[in-house]
């Protein structure tokens, strides 16, 4: 399949919804080995997790938009989390997002790869709660 990567930026992702349950929050805190949280507070790493799980497209299909097979080993290169308000458990968030950019690189050692930038947001009703901007490295096996 031929995909016009230059046309991808601005592509809206299907919206979804996500609720951070108190039980999953407690399991997460234990797994990370961190200190407890105050009543009702969600661990801030949920800013990443809730957007990834809540957006209406799974990672494999998201990467397929860029004609990339998840089996070819994508890597998360960077993540920027911004919180307008602290996240809370047992509260339903609306999740929306879009492809922000695709940049082709040709590294001497790494070979050809694309940097896919995706922004997703958690909203309480119409109120922004958190924004996550992820950059994925998509190694290309063959030169374009």
């Amino acid at each position, binding site marked *: 399949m031929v995909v016009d990567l230059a046309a991808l930026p601005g592509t809206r992702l299907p919206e979804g919804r996500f609720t951070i349950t108190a039980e999953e929050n407690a399991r997460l805190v234990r*797994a990370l080995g*961190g200190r407890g949280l105050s009543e009702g507070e969600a661990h801030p790493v949920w800013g990443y*997790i809730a957007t990834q799980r809540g957006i209406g497209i799974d990672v494999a299909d998201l990467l397929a938009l860029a004609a990339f097979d998840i089996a070819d080993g994508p890597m998360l*290169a960077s*993540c920027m989390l911004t919180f307008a308000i602290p996240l809370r458990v047992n509260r339903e968030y609306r999740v929306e997002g879009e492809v922000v950019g695709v940049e082709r690189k040709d590294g001497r050692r790494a070979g050809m790869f694309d940097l896919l930038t995706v922004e997703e947001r958690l909203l309480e009703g119409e109120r922004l709660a958190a924004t996550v901007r992820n950059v994925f490295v998509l190694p290309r096996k063959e030169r374009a």
Partner: protein
Amino acid sequence: MTLKPGAELGPRRIDPVDSEAMCTLAEILGDPNPIHLDAAAARAAGLGDRPVNQGPANFGYVLDMLRSSIPEGHVVELHVRLLGSVFAGDSVVAGGRIDSVDWVADAAHASCTVWLDVEDGQRALTGTAVLKVPQARATPTSPA
């Protein structure tokens, strides 16, 4: 702690990175990639002989380090670059430093450099963070 430029944050040590916790995180992250669960899968992918820790877990450790160092504040921004892998059984240390403190309305905003190092190994993650501390809870360096 006193909010002042140059103040060290952490360290927070995770020793060892636990493979059972990685299984729990795989469920919570909704990430079935076997390289996080199975040494054979990591080996087959050319990533070494141990399961690879999830990237979001690595910045989760950094978020916990920030929460422990400045418990009266909350993270409003975290920007991380993932530089290398952390493996099951590794010992890692999350740390940071306050670079500047600015007052915005009634809160201190502490801008920090953060990192996660594998002990006796490479830096796995580097980045920046901003914590917001309400004036009533912030010690010293309050606005003149």
